[in-house]
């Protein structure tokens, strides 16, 4: 523990592990001076005494104080544990590193053998080796140490081969550093951290194995004693004095927990980078945060009458806990209204809140997101109240979603057919044959050939573009009135993008559903949408008609987005303009 950084020790696990390790060390060193006499003192009159103030764990059949013996046994238990751990770590390092530098075929032989040995539980290997080296403290230490070699060798090999594939090691090889030089100078320093964590974990398992082996009578032999040996003696007297068995057992459990905590504290240390990054990200978000009492950023013309709106959200605010008790608001009072059959684009850069707005509109944001609205309706359903079963069903039928990454938006464990027949079966009450026909028709309508065969396949048998079209088809299996497509083409290449867009448009024409199309690509959005909502920093900064976006856009952010688009007349000798990171302040007169 002495080599760890201060910051690692400050975590609760680190503090507990450090204190525990110090206590174990002190007891190991000084116990024989303090309790040595009591541990060896036999007394016929005090035989098999129950626990008392003088002897908390009672006495054994020779009248010796069991508590004193547990304390004195700490030294032997610790030394044997550390000895066996050292054998495992050194053996694992040697075997693992040798495997790393071997040529291909011998290397595969060695790693194959390690894998075969790894298939067997550690205890089985320990028992095997302890047959060879006999029932003694030294034999048990060798047996436990060698039984731990395969798992550490595998770890070292995996770590070392991942490091030796990196560029800086290749560079070292190119300049002529030999295999052992590379191991010593480049590989070892990079695998030391994980190896340390696993050494502490190995020590914990080793300690428990030793206790087990001594308990079986295959480890430390009388008159010497470790915790396992004391446990073996204690359990024979468990009806006379339960503490004589529980005492050594407690010592084993506590020491094991100290090693486990040490391992966890060391592992937490390597996760610090993550926490620091998160704090930075939170700070940057708060820095961009605006005064929220400004009211709705853009007054909208649409009325509340549900006849000409399919979905409406007003005063939408989305916040997340910042991990320190407060919250960070990411969407600051957005108003959005969608008319039936309308195609609305939401554009903005990453982090502008466009996806959060869409997810909130669909009512799909869950804890830890905190959503606030002054009004939130979808086709006459009040989305801000608790929804009835019937309203849930209507939402399932009328509201469809398409997500950015088609590789993760379909369930990999279910067939495409299972996923496409679900809405008709659950919400439309169709039998399995009818819903299958419906799913097949939906797949056909998004131009997927052989829909019947395709329905029986799993998503991993579909290409990316096909999966995205299958997602659209999933919406078409019901009666969609609104389709929310969250960057549906970002993860696809250009030709596939075009297919997906045309399928979306066809679907819109065929069903009359409204579409909310989210993208960072203002050119794409203005090409397919009726109306464009521009978002920046969690607010709507401008709403313009898509047809006249180049002429009518007034907000500097929108103009900046448009200016980034190259066209046939762009000067190719000049770099495209970029949008600065400074806040683009909202002019008071910006009105649609």
């Amino acid at each position, binding site marked *: 523990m002495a080599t760890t950084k201060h910051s690692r020790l400050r975590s609760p696990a680190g503090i507990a592990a450090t204190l525990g390790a110090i206590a174990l060390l002190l007891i190991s060193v000084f116990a024989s001076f303090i309790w040595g006499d009591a541990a060896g003192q036999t007394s016929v009159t005090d035989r098999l005494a129950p626990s008392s103030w003088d002897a908390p764990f009672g006495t054994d059949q020779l009248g010796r104080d069991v508590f004193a013996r547990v304390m004195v046994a700490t030294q032997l238990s610790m030394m044997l544990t550390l000895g066996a751990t050292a054998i495992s770590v050194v053996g694992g390092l040697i075997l693992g590193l040798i495997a790393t530098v071997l040529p291909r075929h011998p290397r595969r032989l060695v790693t194959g*053998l390690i894998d075969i040995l790894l298939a067997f539980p550690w205890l089985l290997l320990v028992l095997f080796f302890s047959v060879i080296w006999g029932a003694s403290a030294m034999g048990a230490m060798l047996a436990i140490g060698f039984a731990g070699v395969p798992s550490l060798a595998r770890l070292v090999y995996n770590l070392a081969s991942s490091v030796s594939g990196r560029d800086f090691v290749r560079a070292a090889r190119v300049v002529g550093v030999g295999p052992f030089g590379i191991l010593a100078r480049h590989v070892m320093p990079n695998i030391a951290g994980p190896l340390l964590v696993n050494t502490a974990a190995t020590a914990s398992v080793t300690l428990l194995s030793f206790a087990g082996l001594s308990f079986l009578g295959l480890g430390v032999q009388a008159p010497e004693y470790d915790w396992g040996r004391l446990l073996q003696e204690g359990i024979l007297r468990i009806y006379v004095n339960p503490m004589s068995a529980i005492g050594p057992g407690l010592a084993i459990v506590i020491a094991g927990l100290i090693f486990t905590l040490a391992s966890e504290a060391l592992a937490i240390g390597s996760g610090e980078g993550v926490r620091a990054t998160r704090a930075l990200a939170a700070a940057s978000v708060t820095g961009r945060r605006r005064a929220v009492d400004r009211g709705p950023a853009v007054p909208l013309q649409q009325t509340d009458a549900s006849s000409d709106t399919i979905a409406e959200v007003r005063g939408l605010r989305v916040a997340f806990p910042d991990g320190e008790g407060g919250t960070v608001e990411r969407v600051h009072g957005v108003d959005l209204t969608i008319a039936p059959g309308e195609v609305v684009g939401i554009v903005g850069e990453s982090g502008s809140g466009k996806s959060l707005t869409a997810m909130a509109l669909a009512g799909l944001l869950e804890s830890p997101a905190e959503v606030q609205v002054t009004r939130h309706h979808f086709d006459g359903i009040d989305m801000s109240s608790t929804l009835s079963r019937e309203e849930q069903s209507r939402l399932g039928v009328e509201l469809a*979603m398409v997500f950015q990454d088609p590789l993760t938006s379909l369930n990999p464990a*279910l067939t495409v057919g299972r996923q496409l027949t679900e809405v008709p079966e659950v919400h439309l009450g169709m039998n399995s044959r009818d819903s299958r026909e419906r799913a097949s028709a939906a797949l056909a309508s998004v131009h997927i050939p052989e829909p019947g065969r395709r329905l029986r396949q799993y998503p991993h048998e579909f290409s990316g573009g096909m999966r995205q079209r299958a997602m659209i088809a999933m919406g078409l299996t019901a009666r969609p009135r609104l389709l929310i497509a969250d960057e549906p083409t970002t993860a696809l290449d250009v030709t596939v993008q075009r297919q997906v867009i045309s399928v979306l448009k066809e679907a819109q024409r065929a069903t009359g559903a409204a579409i909310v199309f989210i993208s960072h690509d203002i050119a794409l959005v203005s090409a397919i949408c009726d109306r464009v909502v521009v978002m920046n920093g969690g607010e709507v900064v401008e709403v313009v008609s898509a047809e006249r976006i180049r002429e009518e856009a007034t907000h500097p952010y929108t103009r900046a987005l448009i200016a980034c688009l190259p066209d046939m007349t762009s000067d190719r000798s000049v770099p495209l303009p970029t949008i600065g990171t400074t806040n683009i302040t909202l002019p008071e007169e910006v009105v649609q």
Partner: protein
Amino acid sequence: MSHDTGRTRSARAEGRFSLGERLSPRTSFLLRRLGRLAASVCVVVLASFFLIHLVPGDPVRAALGPSASPELVAATQASLGLDKPILQQFVDYLGGLLTGDLGTSIQSHRPVAQTIAERFPATLLLAVAAFAVAIAGALPIGLGMAISSRGGRRRGLDAALSSLLGVLIAIPGFLLAVGFIALFSVQLGLLPAAGWGTIRSGILPVLALALGPMAYLARIVQVEMITVLGTTYMTTARAKRLPSRLVYFRHALPNIVTATLTVGGLILSGLTAATVLVETVFAIPGLGTTMVAAVSTKDYPMVQGVVLVYALIVLGVNLVVDLILITIDPRSSITEG
């Protein structure tokens, strides 16, 4: 080929280029898997055969003790075949294995196979019962924790349960067994502290064996489930407004099966070895107590036989788990893409 989730299984990564060019992924996986099984069986048989030769000094003298007459030692060596050339011994050993003959115990002079056949059922029952309890407990606990604490809800309850699981994982079965005896047998007098054959005498050993693996598996299930609940396809399922029953059981559960089964297999083979200690605590006449007695009395033919049986059980469990995995999850045979 493109590949979706990150659930690759590193154990499958070997031998990826040799076969599979012309064969279907599943056939080539099966061939590779059987090849590994054959290699493992060879290693196990060799290790078991050489065990007696690896013992320093004269194993027969060690087994019979310093007071045994030289004639007895020589006779025992001859009956074990140790006076023959080593190759001849190995051929005889293999021949014996194929006919189910594992040799004769030095101590009891009974066939090793017969003793193993008598002791095996208790160990099997103990391990299988403990495994069933571990699975039956781990699934509801892990799923319940993941679902109830999703998105940072019920932080306190989650932390308390996680610590409890952590402590249970850290305590080995034989120490739990000692604690159970002290509590339920000595203090409360509810259940017997030793013995085998009745349901009551089986409760404590099974619980002592099962709780640690159950806690470990529950944690795996919880972590896997939290990962699955955060995926986009679960958002897709929620967007369909399916009843929670379908969201969790149809959409989430199949995605944790691979990891759960893989860990479950490791647990079952680990349980097989852990029975040795728990059998000793409760004085259960199983393979474990037989093994410990044989090691203590240096009854090498018996040790060879028992080690071989344990190792073959472990290999069998691993094979069955892998076969189940490729049957229910076709992607586990085609991890490399």
